[in-house]
């Protein structure tokens, strides 16, 4: 889909990007990462020709990007930047419609498309379409920035540290939403970041760069398990095992727990628990109510008194949560397991410490000492 062949950019004596070659398949998210000044943004900006390469060539769907008129090329590449760059004199809908207007769409189609995209990025169109950029929070503005880039349905998205300027909480939410949107749309995405966690979370392929040179081009798992050199090894960090958990979803390792309906009574509770100590207690419609501890029953509490009620929003995780987030939630609550619930708070499984340990151990044998020498 996108192919870089020996792409080079020189500024006088300095080489910002040096003989860079890699290929990104259609529908993949490729994250460019490295320390600042490594040439990742320069690489991105060469793809839409905001910077012209001094050597090599870039092909999109087999066509050299230099063969297209530059405006036409750019209109087919959605562009999202850290500082967003919304036009302050246009409404949210006006901003989203910038490229459709350049392409000469009619009004009704532009309005319908703007509404559709606002819904996609999680902003109710009725409340947002007529707002001006200065009335938006940072997170909302960046959602509009993403919607604007998607307006003309370009097959490729170029994103330059898109979530770098929002606070950590919102960044995580935006990442989750981006992952959801990407599952739906399957765009080919080139994504620049300096945040290795973000890269591991979102990437299908990671291109890790240093001083304009490609250090390793691999899937996140590969990068974590087989860092190509010391630089990559150090860049990924010592907590590789934890990082691996980012790539595992709760739904991949959850199992079905013992459950019982709230009206089962003491006998029912003991029966459901069997030899376990804890059993989840459900409402008749399957929603999580709490749990029961058989020790409490042993101490003579009545069936009703023994139920520990929980707030399902607090004490459970969704199936798409990463295993690392689930682990951190468990540690925060002091539990050795945590319930998994769907959107309607219905219990669909549980994740335990031991399943997290198992996932961490996977691939551990691969983490042999990496080669000391730098590739270069």
């Amino acid at each position, binding site marked *: 889909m996108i192919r870089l062949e020996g792409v080079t950019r020189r500024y006088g004596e300095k080489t910002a990007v040096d003989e860079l070659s890699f290929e990104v398949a259609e529908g993949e998210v490729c994250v460019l990462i490295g320390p600042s000044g490594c040439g990742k943004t320069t690489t991105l900006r060469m793809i*839409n020709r*905001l910077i012209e390469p001094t050597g090599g060539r870039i092909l999109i769907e087999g066509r050299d990007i230099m063969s297209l008129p530059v*405006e*036409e*090329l*750019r*209109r087919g*590449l959605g*562009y999202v*930047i850290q*500082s*967003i*760059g*919304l*036009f*302050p*004199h*246009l*409404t949210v809908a006006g901003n989203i419609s*910038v*490229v459709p207007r*350049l392409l000469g769409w009619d009004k009704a189609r532009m309005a319908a498309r703007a509404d559709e995209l606002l819904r996609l990025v999680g902003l109710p169109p009725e409340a947002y379409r007529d707002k*001006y*950029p*200065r009335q938006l929070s940072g997170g909302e503005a960046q959602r509009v*920035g993403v919607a*604007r*880039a998607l307006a003309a349905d370009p097959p490729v998205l*170029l994103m330059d540290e898109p979530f770098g300027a929002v606070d950590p909480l919102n960044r995580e939410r935006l990442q989750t939403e981006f992952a959801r949107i990407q599952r739906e749309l399957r765009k080919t995405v080139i994504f620049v970041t300096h945040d290795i966690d973000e890269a591991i979370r979102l990437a299908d392929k990671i291109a890790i760069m240093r001083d304009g040179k490609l250090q390793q081009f691999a899937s996140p798992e590969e990068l974590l398990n087989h860092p190509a050199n010391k630089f990559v090894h150090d860049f990924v960090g010592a907590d590789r095992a934890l990082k691996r958990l980012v790539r595992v979803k709760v739904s991949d390792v959850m199992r079905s727990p013992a459950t019982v309906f709230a009206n089962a009574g003491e006998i029912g509770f003991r029966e459901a628990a069997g030899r376990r100590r804890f059993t989840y207690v459900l409402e008749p419609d399957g929603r999580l109510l709490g749990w029961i501890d058989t020790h409490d029953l042993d101490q003579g509490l009545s069936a009703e008194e023994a139920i520990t009620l929980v707030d399902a929003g607090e004490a459970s995780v969704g199936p798409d949560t990463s295993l690392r987030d689930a682990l951190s939630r468990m540690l925060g609550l002091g539990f050795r397991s945590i319930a998994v619930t769907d959107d309607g708070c219905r219990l669909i499984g549980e994740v335990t410490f031991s399943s997290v340990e198992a996932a961490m151990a996977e691939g551990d044998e691969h983490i042999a000492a990496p080669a000391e020498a730098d590739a270069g």
Partner: protein
Amino acid sequence: MALVGAVVALAGATVLPFVELRPNRLVPGAMHGFAAAGPWAFAVWALVAMGFTAAFLRGVKARLVAGSVSAIGIVAALSWALGSAADTLLAGQAPVSRVSMGAGVWVMLAGAAILGFAGQERTHRVLWRLVAAAVVLVALFGAFHLGGLERISLVREFEVRASSFWGLLGNHLALASAGVGLGVMFGVPLGLLATRNRRARGVVLGVTGVIQTVPSLALLGLLIVPLSALSQAVPALRAIGVHGIGAAPGLVALTLYALLPVVRNTYVGLSGVDPAAVDAGLGMGMSRGQLLMRVEFPLALPLIIEGVRTASVLLIGITTLTAFAGARNLGVLIIEGLGQFAPDLILLGALPTIMLAVAADSALSAVGRAVTPEGVRT
């Protein structure tokens, strides 16, 4: 601020001379206090008292209304007071006798202006201003035709020159507008050039800045020689009215003076556009022209209009000086007034110039607000 205005108005209405009765239009005469206005003096005093009250009212709105009513009232009542004083003082005098406005009139007008504008920074109600202007005009018209205002020396000077006055006013407006128009025609592209090219920026901003420091009269004088040479050399230019003296050097000088405010505001407006918006626009596939017309100009327009406003006010004033180089406009009256030591003739040239400048200022402020995109209004 209302208190300051009321105190100033009070000083004008008490201690300062109100009118001067002179045996003819050129020689000085005797000063008369505000009592010469008769009963109208009491009306003005009552309105000044209202101005004082305005300063001590509690509500912001009440203060604003009382201050504005007092200010407009003082101006309206003053026109009748002047007429009344002229009537009284000129009774039984020789026909060449003149009644001129004294310092008290100007100080009262200044006090009224302070009263009227105190608190106005919060309201830009166009309707309110139009009502104020209408009230003052009706009062002036009435005082003129019924209240004896037409016997004031300033009006007598006007009557003598009535046949040429409107022509001079029209010329004045035309010359100043042409200067602003040409200033925009050259200034906006130069401002754009300054944002696009760093080397051009230094030259453009530097040269227009230097032009601004050349004294107007000196610039006019300097232009006479090359323009007459040009006119001699190129008959076609002579045919369209380009001479060393007349409107041509004036127009060239005015255009040059208009350049700085227009160029600088265009440059500041365009370079103030968020670089991220420019990057995003280009990255999305806008051409430089589309970016300029759809993003950069709409965002810079309020500032450009602000530059046009500054240039207009500046040029309406400087236009009077072009009369020294032979242009026929309100400046002619001022120069003749200076030559004859006839202060009221000077006023006949100066007052309409001031009014033109104030009108241009308000009109272009309104345009500036109208072109400010809703999303960037504060």
